[in-house]
């Protein structure tokens, strides 16, 4: 799955579009074609994101109603080829295992209903994956590291909760301690940062609220205060920024929107105006979404743009997305029905 930008631009060749139609088939074709672009420089420069890229592309295709557009067996083979001896997954074959790719691997396998493959052809069953993740929890404060090298970030904590709960293994970690850690990331403005004491950022709000949601501890959140901060991220053109006085970006439709949905405050923003903004970020000719109208499209913004649109429910033609897991709702329902 290539993470290279382009070829198209949001708004198409003219760079502007008042077109308010969602070009489903164009986006499907765009994602399917990503894999044929291996002769491009950016393909290998983004190798460290490869497994994330498959998750983004695959989820987008499911939301677009084309779940079979990627070959299932080859997807499984690729995911398993990224697994290390320790049970974790690297970004691509031969890369060290890391939390972020391990989470993507689990999400992909859950989406295509192939968790059993871990037992059959992986390096041990799901418990092996679970023990890799659990081994990354800091015993002193409950936070999670990305790998054995110790970078700590609320993204990793959320990722751990996401993957472990999908595997039914959340009891492998100290949930209560991790919850306390998240609380220490709350700031005076009611939102959350990447670690205690750092500036509030809507991407980190998503990770903190997502983790609290999985832990069943949303009661710890001051929803009115956080909702006020989140809804304030919407600017006049309808889009969201990630922090005060920063530029709008289509991907914040997801980070801010899903957080508002999790605390039941999504109706505090203008959904119609936001949807219109996101649709302006699509390339109606070659498919894909960009961060802003006129910019180059990429699979990351395509995934989060579509997930955001699905969440808002203004545009027809998309499967429903789960705000906590950023996966199709039907997949989450199937996973937890077991």
């Amino acid at each position, binding site marked *: 799955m290539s993470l290279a930008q382009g070829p198209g631009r949001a708004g198409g060749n003219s760079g502007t579009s008042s077109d308010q139609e969602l070009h489903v088939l164009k986006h499907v074709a765009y994602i399917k074609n990503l*894999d044929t672009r*291996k002769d491009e420089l950016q*393909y*290998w*420069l*983004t*190798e*460290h*994101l*490869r497994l994330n890229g*498959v998750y983004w592309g695959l989820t987008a295709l499911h939301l677009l109603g084309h779940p079979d557009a*990627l*070959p299932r067996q*080859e997807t499984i*083979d*690729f995911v398993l*080829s990224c697994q290390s001896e320790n049970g974790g997954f*690297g970004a*691509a*074959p*031969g*890369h*060290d295992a890391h939390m972020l790719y391990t989470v993507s691997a689990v999400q992909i396998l859950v989406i295509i209903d192939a968790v059993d493959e871990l037992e059959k052809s992986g390096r041990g069953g799901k418990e092996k994956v679970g023990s890799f993740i659990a081994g990354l929890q800091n015993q002193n404060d409950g936070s999670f590291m990305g*790998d054995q*090298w*110790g*970078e700590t970030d609320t993204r990793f904590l959320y990722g751990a909760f996401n993957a472990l709960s999908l595997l039914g293994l959340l009891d492998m970690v100290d949930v209560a301690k991790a919850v*306390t*850690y998240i*609380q*220490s*990331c*709350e*700031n*005076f*403005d009611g939102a959350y940062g*990447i*670690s*205690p*004491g*750092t*500036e*509030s*950022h809507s991407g980190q709000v998503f990770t903190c609220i997502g983790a609290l949601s999985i832990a069943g501890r949303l009661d710890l959140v*001051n929803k009115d205060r956080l*909702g006020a901060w989140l*809804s*304030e991220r*919407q*600017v*006049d053109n*309808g889009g969201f920024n990630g*922090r*005060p*006085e*920063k530029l709008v970006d289509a991907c914040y439709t997801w980070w801010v929107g899903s957080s508002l949905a999790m605390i039941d405050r999504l*109706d*505090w*923003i*203008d959904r119609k105006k936001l949807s219109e903004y996101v649709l302006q970020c699509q390339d109606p000719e070659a498919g894909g979404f960009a961060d802003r109208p006129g910019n180059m499209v990429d699979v990351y913004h395509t995934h989060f743009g579509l997930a955001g649109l699905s969440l808002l429910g203004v545009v027809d033609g998309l499967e429903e997305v789960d705000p906590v897991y950023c996966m199709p709702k039907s997949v989450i329902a199937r996973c937890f029905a077991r």
Partner: protein
Amino acid sequence: MEGKYANDPEWASITPIQLDDGSEKAMPLATIAYPSEYLEATSYLRAVMAANEMSERALKLTEHVISMNPAHYTVWIYRAKILFALNKDLLDELAWLNGVSLKYLKNYQIWHHRQVLLESRTHFPNIPEKELDFLMEMFAQDSKNYHVWTYRHWLVRRFNLWDLPREIEDVESLIKADVRNNSAWNHRYMLRFGPRSEKAGMENSGFNGVLPHQKGVCSVVDEDLVDAELQYAKEQILRAPENRSPWWYARGVLRAAGRGVQDWEEFAGKFVVEGEVRSSHAVEFLADVYALKEGRGEKAVEMLTLLKERYDPIRKNYWDYRIQQVVV
């Protein structure tokens, strides 16, 4: 294979390990077409990493790979291990890292690498002399760079810089240059009111059983400092009344000091005079003040209605919710 390393006698003893990306098993999702220079360098990297080789040549190789792809997270881990194993001069490493950081502004690995180096109490019993100068150089490129601010907060805790005059001076010069720099305002808040104990984060935030109204409230405050901070916020608001950061900073300060928003009724009122509103944040402030006062509910609703209809209509539903909450 032909290339820089294949033709170098220094590397003759190494058998490069080619990437097994499964392409022979026909996996279209994974096959990667590498330009040859990167392909060769990473094949040698895999070989020396597999042997856990701690050498000068391996160090140089990591630099080469990083120069082509600084987001390759594995190579950074290996580089740090070599630096410590060979007991290299870490100030030289920082000097090199400065250049890489200025070139790749949005990279996570670079900042974690820096943190790994400075975590070593053996090598850095004190903060390196030029460290804060370099961070200001980074802020000159992007004064809201999230990685750099996160690192700076870590640095304050690591070297106990809370009361270092330079720390607050840098914050002030950044706010002077851009009063809307919310990152600088957050850093200021942590310097002034963040707990200095092991427990990081806002006061009272990371404890079980803390009631919402206790969060961010300091048990002991220097009242003179609080007054000075509120005065500072007022001065910055006068520069740009529609800037949210100092308004929210003031709320944070009032809360930390256990004072209420009503302390600012008069100040906020200056921005909302009959027929002229100079700051929507002042309108919101007044709404909060009135909502707390008995018999002033109607005034609160009036303020919230102004926000809903004139100053922030995009959040109409939010303001409607706030109006419903007011007891008239």
